[in-house]
């Protein structure tokens, strides 16, 4: 890459690019544009009323806060887990490493009913937590738990490779210059990890915002309390309120696009950081 090429002798450019663009347009771009075109059939006032209705506003607040909280929890524990996987040896490490990707492989509906069985009143953990006054299932806390589950691999798999590439020499140099371990971590390791931590956070956050399957079983779906934004779209669809559903969907899409751009910028930054270090 990066080497300026003269005339490329390889065939198939027109065919492969043409097919790629046609398939992308048919499967993704045209259908997505339908969301914006449909929401444009609403008058400005009706659009505004739909997206700022109390139930919608409550759902944005819940979806945003729970996604943010879950991404934060995952940054802390995901980094610890990545650290343990890269730096320590312990029995069962290979299995733990492979299992980190479980949330990618386990269908969200399965995760949803399993988490509900764990945290319901008579569930495996719920039976312990509820007498202590901690209700998880069918509350906003349940939404948080589900989003922690689906977001964990994003942080681990973003931080882990950076930790693996981190040269031991940097820490040795810091130590030989008299820095204690904590200072080395703060001034040497943490700055190197920062782009990966931010990228992992944003990926987990972006995924959590749109998550549906794992959440609806455990959330209880109480309007104004534990109803997430994707569920509002489903409810409106079931009432044949297509314009209303697309209005909410277009709000979510705009947020998703903004996050996608942020993720790209973060990854470019991380790439430059890595290149600068080598």
């Amino acid at each position, binding site marked *: 890459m990066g080497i300026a090429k003269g005339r490329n002798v390889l065939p*198939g450019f027109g065919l492969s690019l043409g097919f790629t663009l046609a398939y992308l347009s048919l499967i993704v771009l045209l*259908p997505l544009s339908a969301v914006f075109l449909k929401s444009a059939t609403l008058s400005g006032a009706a659009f505004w009323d739909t997206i700022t209705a109390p139930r919608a506003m409550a759902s944005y607040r819940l979806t945003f806060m729970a996604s943010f909280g879950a991404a934060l929890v995952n940054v802390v524990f995901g980094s610890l887990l990545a650290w343990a996987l*890269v730096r320590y040896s312990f029995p069962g490490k290979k299995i733990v490493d492979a299992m980190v990707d479980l949330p*990618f492989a386990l*269908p969200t*509906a399965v995760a949803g009913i399993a988490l509900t069985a764990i945290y319901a009143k008579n569930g495996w953990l719920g039976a312990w937590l509820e007498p202590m006054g901690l209700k998880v299932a069918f509350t906003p806390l349940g939404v948080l738990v589900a989003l922690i589950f689906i977001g964990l691999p994003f942080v681990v798999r973003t931080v882990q490779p950076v930790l693996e*590439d981190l040269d031991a020499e940097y820490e*040795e140099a810091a130590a030989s210059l008299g820095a204690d371990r904590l200072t080395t971590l703060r001034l040497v390791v943490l700055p190197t990890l920062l782009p990966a931590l931010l990228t992992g956070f944003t990926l987990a956050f972006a995924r959590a915002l749109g998550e549906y399957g794992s959440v609806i079983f455990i959330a209880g779906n109480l309007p104004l309390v534990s109803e997430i934004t994707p569920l509002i779209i489903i409810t409106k*669809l079931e009432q044949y309120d297509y314009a209303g559903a697309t209005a909410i969907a277009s709000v979510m899409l705009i947020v998703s696009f903004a996050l996608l751009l942020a993720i790209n910028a973060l990854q470019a930054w991380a790439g430059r950081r890595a290149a600068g270090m080598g």
Partner: protein
Amino acid sequence: MAGGSSRLAKAGQTRFEAREATRDSALVKGIVLTLSLVFFAVFLLLPLVVVFAEALRKGWDTYLAALVEPDALSAIKLTLTAALIAVPLNVVFGVSAAWAIAKFEFRGKALLVTLIDLPFSVSPVIAGLCYVLVFGAQGWFGSWLAANDIKIIFAVPGIVLATVFVTFPFVARELIPLMEAQGTEEEEAATVLGASGWQTFWRVTIPNIKWGLMYGIILTNARAMGEFGAVSVVSGHIRGFTNTMPLHVEILYNEYQFAAAFAVASLLALLALVTLALKTFVEWQAERAHKEIEA
């Protein structure tokens, strides 16, 4: 990014514990290990264990009965059908996109790569919604489809389309970095020596990317069989006709048939475990192939 970053090239590990400056004290190691492994056990391991425990709670007879019941069988069949159509489509797309992007220079390439990632950042619910807007009764082609007696929404084609959408980027994003790293020299040599385009592709490119391709297929298949939100919107939940396995799990669960719901869920959990095992195997193979090239 839903597929995780490509982990096909991993570095060696134990070097950190051998060195004074990077070795954590026993206390720190103990705290980090306890915290991270308890978190792992509660948030990842426990849900998996619960699925199998709940599935077998009422014994093997109930378990097996839930799996061979006609609605469950038709759900399994539909899930397999959808994956069998969606996976090959996205493989052809992924290879084609990676060929254009990795082997050639053109304007707007960065934008194209971003657009390919788009389905990962869109909520599955919105993925389903956009097909309803295009093909639904009130959609763009709704009246034309109705006039010609073609059903897409609340029918199998809609389920396949939604599945294609949510699994769209997996193969492409696995292959693009891999093929970029491999460059074009081998293909150019084959072409100069007189191989046709397709010969070069099948004999040079495919062997070079086979592990990356496998990896992409495994991830695509897992998501295709497990997708819930997008499929839920377009399916209409018609029992025995448009119910996939995840949707069947939901229906059983909402009818308080918990043992049956978890029985079907346990098949999907098994699929997840097979996926993880295959994925680890492919990573291991790719790593070995990588080392052989470097040696």
